[in-house]
């Protein structure tokens, strides 16, 4: 006979404020095999745990039910109590009477109490039937994969590499650097972005433990913590990177003109191009969809000899390359090359994009003098399209009046309800940089409110006011296009309580930070989920900020939510530390609550094999004629699909056996 102890938690007022804990406790005492039933304000606190501990030591209980919050965060805590006192930790069952009861039925105390009793009864019924289970361990591949080479990915990669781990750093663009490489200067210290980022990029590019794979994407991810099998697709660059010296001769020779992404579309680049001057690695690529195959030199075409000159006909890029890195006669697979790597942990650091201006129809998006803030970064950057000269796009004249508009697409139910968090600060930065350089520039900044929570941030903001930058509280509703390429900004000054108009030469709008359009299929490859705002979801917003629901996969930087560089780097280092744990331990525990096949019962029908969403089942021939199903324990996630499908009931899901579940059902329907 089992000796079940039931411990009901008040969770402060979370449960106690709704559920009659006393009544639930009393009810528990009446359940079969229950020997004690106790309550505490916080069962997970030290004194709370101590109550359970004492009952185990005293031999009062040998199975434990805690009725409290969610097993997602608290099951490990209570299992540790059992383990500490020599009791098998799987002889524990949690009844969630908070998330699934008191929180959802806060207005129905009686109903919530009745439901709590049922939930506890069901947990007790299962507990009576629990069996001890043993943890298993597998070895870990001591290597990590970092996806995304922005400032987050770079810092994660460097930290992991410096700890002695092999790191594969994957970047989809030809160079690492991310958005930070596009920035001019950075708040709150106004240090030049390139000056502080470039050395770190070089470190990442030359680190003996880092294998940098740029112009590359993830094709497929399989496996589990400690042993992920990753297929990386190295995109076809059509340039031999072994030979390319990054001189840029091909880019200069290419006649194609297509919008230059690095300069946020403010100027054009060739189909052959180098990402940006400080690129790491500094290698050219040919962007084939935009290539016009000059001279009929399609890739893999036979070389023709000019009748006139007797020399081979070459495309300008081929002709220009002094290193012989471009040979368009060579057949090249447009799909690029697949590289297989095995890693123990993965960090996702894929960053973000900013919204385009054309969604904001009331703000004259068709005017060339309406810019996104990222475009302004490029416009004032020394490496930008104007060499850092502040000239407005329509006529290359120096603007006299500039308006900054905040919250464009952020805090807006038509687009994103969240605050993009960095815009107030970077707009103040941009305004200050401009005002420093051009003191007679008139600057108006339209805010809903100014958000500067950060070290030295508010001082940075008040400094802008001291400089004579005009801060206006009130959201801008419209922009008119005036003759002479001017713009009439129609705003409102809440403090004046008046409509205002600004005749501006240039308008800069802080468009929202959001994830890339193709993020969903990417997330699916990693079995990751996105949250309500569309960013990658962390395991717990407070306590597990870099972990994900997939063990062994971690998050760093803006892919998890908008943040500035200081926070990005902090999180990147946190993610590296978290990812280093399994790599350092050398082995990871495999959850024993997984499925197992009873070879004797298995008929070899094979129904289960295609059903497993994790590909954990394979049919192994015991002898020539009789295949039998086999479950790879490291791949099984314990979802139980196979268990329910097997016509021979040959599959058992440990921790959720048939009699355990039936007992729960009986208890619930009693």
């Amino acid at each position, binding site marked *: 006979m089992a000796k079940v102890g039931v411990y009901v938690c008040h969770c402060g007022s979370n449960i106690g404020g709704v559920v009659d804990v006393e009544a639930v406790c009393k009810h528990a005492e009446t359940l079969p095999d229950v020997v004690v039933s106790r309550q505490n304000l916080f069962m997970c606190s030290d004194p709370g745990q101590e109550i359970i501990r004492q009952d185990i030591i005293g031999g009062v209980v040998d199975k434990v039910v805690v009725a409290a919050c969610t097993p997602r965060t608290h099951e490990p805590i209570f299992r540790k109590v059992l383990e500490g006192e020599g009791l098998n930790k799987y002889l524990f069952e949690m009844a969630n009477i908070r998330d699934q009861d008191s929180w959802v039925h806060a207005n129905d105390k009686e109903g919530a109490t009745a439901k709590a009793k049922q939930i506890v009864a069901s947990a007790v019924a299962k507990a009576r039937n629990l069996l001890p289970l043993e943890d298993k361990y597998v070895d870990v591949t001591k290597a990590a994969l970092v996806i995304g080479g922005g400032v987050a990915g770079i810092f994660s990669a460097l930290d992991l590499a410096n700890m002695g781990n092999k790191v594969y750093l994957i970047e989809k663009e030809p160079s690492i650097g991310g958005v930070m490489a596009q920035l001019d200067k950075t708040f709150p210290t106004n240090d030049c972005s390139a000056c502080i980022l470039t050395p770190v990029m070089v470190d990442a590019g030359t680190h003996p433990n880092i294998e940098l794979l740029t112009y590359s994407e993830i094709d497929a991810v399989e496996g589990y913590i400690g042993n992920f099998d990753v297929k990386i697709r190295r995109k076809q660059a059509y340039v031999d990177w072994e030979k390319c010296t990054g001189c840029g001769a091909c880019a200069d020779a290419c006649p194609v003109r297509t919008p230059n992404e690095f300069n946020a579309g403010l100027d054009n680049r060739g189909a052959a191009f180098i990402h940006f001057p400080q690129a790491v690695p500094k290698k050219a690529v040919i962007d084939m969809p935009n290539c016009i195959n000059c001279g009929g030199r399609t890739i893999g075409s036979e070389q023709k000899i000019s009748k006139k000159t007797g020399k081979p006909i070459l495309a300008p890029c081929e002709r220009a390359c002094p290193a012989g890195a471009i040979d368009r006669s060579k057949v090249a697979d447009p799909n690029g090359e697949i590289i297989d790597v095995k890693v123990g942990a993965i960090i996702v650091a894929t960053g973000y994009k900013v919204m385009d201006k054309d969604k904001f129809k009331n703000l004259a998006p068709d005017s060339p003098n309406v810019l996104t803030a990222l475009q302004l970064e490029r416009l004032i950057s020394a490496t930008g399209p104007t060499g850092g000269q502040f000239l407005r796009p329509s006529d290359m004249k120096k603007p006299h009046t500039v308006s900054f508009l905040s919250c464009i697409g952020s805090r807006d139910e038509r687009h994103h309800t969240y605050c993009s968090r960095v815009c107030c600060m970077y707009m103040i930065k941009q305004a200050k940089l401009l005002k420093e350089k051009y003191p007679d520039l008139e600057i108006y900044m339209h805010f809903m409110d100014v958000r500067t929570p950060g070290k030295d941030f508010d001082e940075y903001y008040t400094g802008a006011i001291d400089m004579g930058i005009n801060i206006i509280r009130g*959201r801008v509703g419209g922009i008119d296009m005036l003759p002479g390429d001017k713009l009439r900004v129609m705003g*409102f000054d809440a403090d004046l309580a008046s409509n205002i108009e600004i005749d501006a030469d240039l308008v800069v709008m802080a468009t929202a930070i959001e994830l890339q359009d193709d993020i969903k299929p990417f997330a699916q490859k990693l079995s990751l989920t996105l949250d309500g705002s569309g960013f990658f979801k962390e395991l717990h917003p407070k306590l597990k900020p870099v972990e994900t629901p997939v063990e062994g996969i971690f998050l760093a930087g803006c892919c998890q939510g908008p943040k500035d560089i200081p926070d990005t780097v902090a999180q990147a280092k946190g993610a590296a530390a978290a990812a280093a744990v399994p790599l350092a331990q050398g082995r990871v525990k495999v959850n024993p609550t997984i499925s197992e096949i009873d070879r004797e019962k298995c008929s070899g029908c094979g129904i289960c094999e295609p059903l497993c969403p994790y590909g954990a089942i394979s049919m192994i021939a015991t002898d020539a004629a009789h295949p039998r199903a086999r479950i790879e324990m490291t791949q099984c996630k314990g979802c139980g699909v196979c268990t329910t499908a097997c016509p021979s009931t040959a599959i058992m899901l440990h921790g959720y056996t048939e009699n355990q579940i039936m007992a729960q059902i009986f208890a619930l329907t009693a």
Partner: protein
Amino acid sequence: MAAINLTKMDKEIIQKIIDHGGKGITKCIQCNACASVCPVAKAGFPLYGRLLFRKIQTGHFEEIIEDSSSWACQACNRCTEICPRDAKPFEIVFAFRRIQANELAISTSAFTPLMNLHATGHAVYSEASKELRQKVGLPAVPVTSIANEKAQEEIRTLLDNSPMGELGIF
């Protein structure tokens, strides 16, 4: 102006606004976008959208019930198009109008179109139109309700049986 003691205000008007079609009143975050493009604000009326909403949110009623600004609302819906909270500001302005109208806190000039509507089916009508119409080669009266007894009866039935019928305007 003396300080307003917010704790002593009566917030009943908020529910009233909601009941009259201004569901968005609780959503407004006072960002001022609506005011920045609103013709009522631009023309200088004292109680344009955003400010009206603040007065309502803080429980002002007596102070604003007689103000005629809401009757200058053009129903242009610029505000609806851009409000970041999707509060549908126009609906709130009209909800306030409806409260004013049902309290008869409106200018008497608003009654003429209503009486016209009840009598002829047209809010705007003048006998002089007959001459104008003939001048441009059209029959003296159009095919609308103006020359249509049945139509006029229908519109009267609709109006008389509506809450408007109880206001004693017709």
